C-alpha cells in the first residue's frame, strides 16, 4: 500500500488538537508507516504545492481573507478532514458571534484598523466542502486515529455516533452531574469523546457541538429546574461551544 500523503493546516485555533497528536507517544511512529507528512508548519519547514491525499485542517474560518487559502487547499486535496471543534463548528471562537463590540473591548482605539478583519467564527465547511470531521475541544486522539485508519483503508463512510454524550457517560457508569447538584449539557451534546468531563467531575460543555434535532427548549428548562441555573445563565449557557447551533444563531 502506497503511503497516504497528508498535510496539516491551521486557522484560528489554539493548536491544541495537533498537540494531542504528539500525545500518542511511541505508537505515533506506527502511524508514520502508513502516512507521509508533506506539510505541517508547526513541526517542519517543507511546504508543498503538489496534490495531497488528505488535508487536515484545524481552526475556524473567521475572516474572509482566509477563504482563498482554504479554496487552494481544497483544490489540491483529494480528501479534506476538519478536526477539532474550531474547524468543525466554530468552537469556542463562536462565543463572540452574538456581540459586535469585541474588537473595541480588546483593541480599544485600534479596533477599527482595517487589518483587524474578524467576522463571525464559522466552521471550515462554511468556506469549502469538508469530507470528514473529527470533533472535540480538544479532539479525542483515539477517535482521530480511528478515523485516519479508516481513511487510510479507503473507507467510504466513517462511522461516528450521532447520539448525545449521556449515552457514553452512562456506559461508563459515571455519576450524573445532576445527581451531584451540578448541571450538564450532555443530553444535547454530540458524543464520540467517551464522556471524559463528567467522569472527571465537571459538566459536559458540549464542546463537540449539539446533536441533530437537539431539544434546546427542554435543555433550558432542565438547566433551570434540575441544574438550578439562574435564568440569565441558562439562556446563555449554550453559547460557549455551541453558539452556532443555537436557534438564534
Amino acid at each position: 500500500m502506497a503511503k497516504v500523503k497528508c498535510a496539516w493546516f491551521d486557522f484560528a485555533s489554539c493548536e491544541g488538537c495537533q498537540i494531542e497528536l504528539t500525545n500518542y507517544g511511541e505508537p505515533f511512529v506506527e502511524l508514520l508507516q502508513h502516512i507521509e507528512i508533506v506539510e505541517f508548519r508547526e513541526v517542519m519547514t517543507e511546504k508543498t504545492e503538489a496534490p495531497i491525499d488528505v488535508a487536515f485542517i484545524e481552526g475556524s474560518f473567521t475572516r474572509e481573507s482566509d477563504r482563498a487559502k482554504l479554496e487552494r487547499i481544497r483544490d489540491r486535496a483529494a480528501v479534506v478532514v476538519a478536526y477539532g471543534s474550531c474547524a468543525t463548528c466554530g468552537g469556542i471562537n463562536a462565543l463572540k458571534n452574538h456581540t459586535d463590540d469585541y474588537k473595541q473591548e480588546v483593541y480599544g482605539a485600534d479596533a477599527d484598523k482595517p487589518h483587524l478583519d474578524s467576522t463571525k467564527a464559522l466552521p471550515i465547511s462554511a468556506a469549502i466542502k469538508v469530507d470528514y470531521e473529527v470533533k472535540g475541544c480538544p479532539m479525542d486522539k483515539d477517535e482521530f486515529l480511528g478515523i485516519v485508519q479508516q481513511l487510510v483503508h479507503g473507507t467510504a463512510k466513517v462511522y461516528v455516533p450521532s447520539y448525545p454524550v449521556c449515552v457514553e457517560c452512562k456506559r461508563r457508569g459515571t455519576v450524573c452531574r445532576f445527581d451531584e447538584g451540578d448541571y450538564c449539557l450532555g443530553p444535547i451534546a454530540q458524543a464520540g469523546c467517551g464522556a471524559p468531563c463528567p467522569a472527571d467531575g465537571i459538566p459536559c460543555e458540549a464542546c463537540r457541538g449539539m446533536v441533530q434535532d437537539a431539544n434546546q427548549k427542554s435543555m433550558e428548562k432542565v438547566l433551570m429546574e434540575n441544574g438550578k441555573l439562574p435564568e440569565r445563565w441558562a439562556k446563555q449557557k449554550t453559547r460557549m461551544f455551541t453558539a452556532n447551533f443555537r436557534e438564534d444563531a
Partner: protein
Amino acid sequence: MKRCYISDEHLNGFVEALMGRGPVIAPVAKQSRFVFEKLETVDDLMLDYDTTILPPKVAFFPTKQELVTFDGKEAKSCINPTDQVLFGVHPYDIKGIAMSDKFYTDSHVDENYMANRRATTIVGSSVQKHYKHAFFGSVCMEVEVIGHDMFLTRVAGGYVADVLTDKGEALLGLGQFGDATDAQAGEADQVNQAAMENCPEKLENTSAQIRDKMRSSFRSDVWEELSEDCFSCGSCNTVCPTCYCFDVQDEWGLDGVSATRCRTWDSCLTAEFSEVSVQGGCENFREQRAERFRHRFMRKAAYLNEQLGGPACVGCGRCSGACTADIANPVVVINKIMEQ
C-alpha cells in the same frame, strides 16, 4: 432450600475468602451513588446500597465487549470467561439477570454472553435501603426471582443465607455459616416482604391490565405529550437491567491490518438506532422521539410479556433517576396511560 446464618463479624471473613479465590464484583460507593465494581478491599463493600448506576449484568456483559478478533489472516473467537462472584445483587436485579439469560439463549445461544454468565456465581442480598424511585413491589410479580446461587437477608446481628444451588452450597465452606434458627428464617421472610411493601413508588394495576391498555393506546396522542422534553439521550435504557440491545462495530488495530469486532450497549431511544438505508437514501422507521419513547414502553410493558410471562421491567427505578428531563419514570407514564 437450605437456610443458614452468618453473623456480622464473620461476613467480612467470608467475603475475603471469596476474594481469595477470584474476582468479587460487588456494590461500592461512588460519590452520591453506587456501582458494581471489583472489590479491592472488603471495606468498600456497601450491602446497604440503594441501587447502582448500571445494573449488575456489567459483571458478565460489559458495556463494550470484544466478539471476534482478526489478525490479518484468521478470525478468532474472544470468548474467554473467568470464574467470579457477583455479590450483593438485589432481588429485582436477579430477575433482570434471569431475563437477559433468557433473551441471550432463546432461539440462538449467545455464548459471548453465556460463557461469562455461567462462570459467575451470584450471591443476592436483601434491599436494606430503597432507591427513591423504586417500585419493584408492584411490578413484574409474575416473574420468579431465580438464577442466583445464594441469597443473604439482613437480620438482627447478621445475615440469613439461603442456599439455592450447588454453586451456592460450595460457598458455605468459605465462611462461618451455621444453621438459621426458625426465628431468624421468619425474620428474613418478613424483612423481604417489608422491602416489597415499602417501595416509595407504586403501580396501581396488574401486568395484564397494563399490557392490554398499552397495546390499545398505541395511537394515542399521549405519547407526544409525554415525550415533549425527551432528549433521545438513551440514559433510560442504558441503565435498565432488562434492556439488552447492542451495536456492533469493527475497529482497526494500530498496525492497520488487525481488527476487532466489538459490541456496545445500544439504545433504541437514540435517533440513529432505527435508521436504514433505502435505495441509497436513509429512512428512519422511528423518526419521531414520541415513537421511540413509545417503543421503549411498549417493549417494557407489552411486547416482551409473552416471552417472559411478565413485563420487562423489574421496578428498580433507575430510569426514573437517570432521566435528566424527569419524564422516563414508568410509574408516572404507566399510571398516566391507565387513567386515559
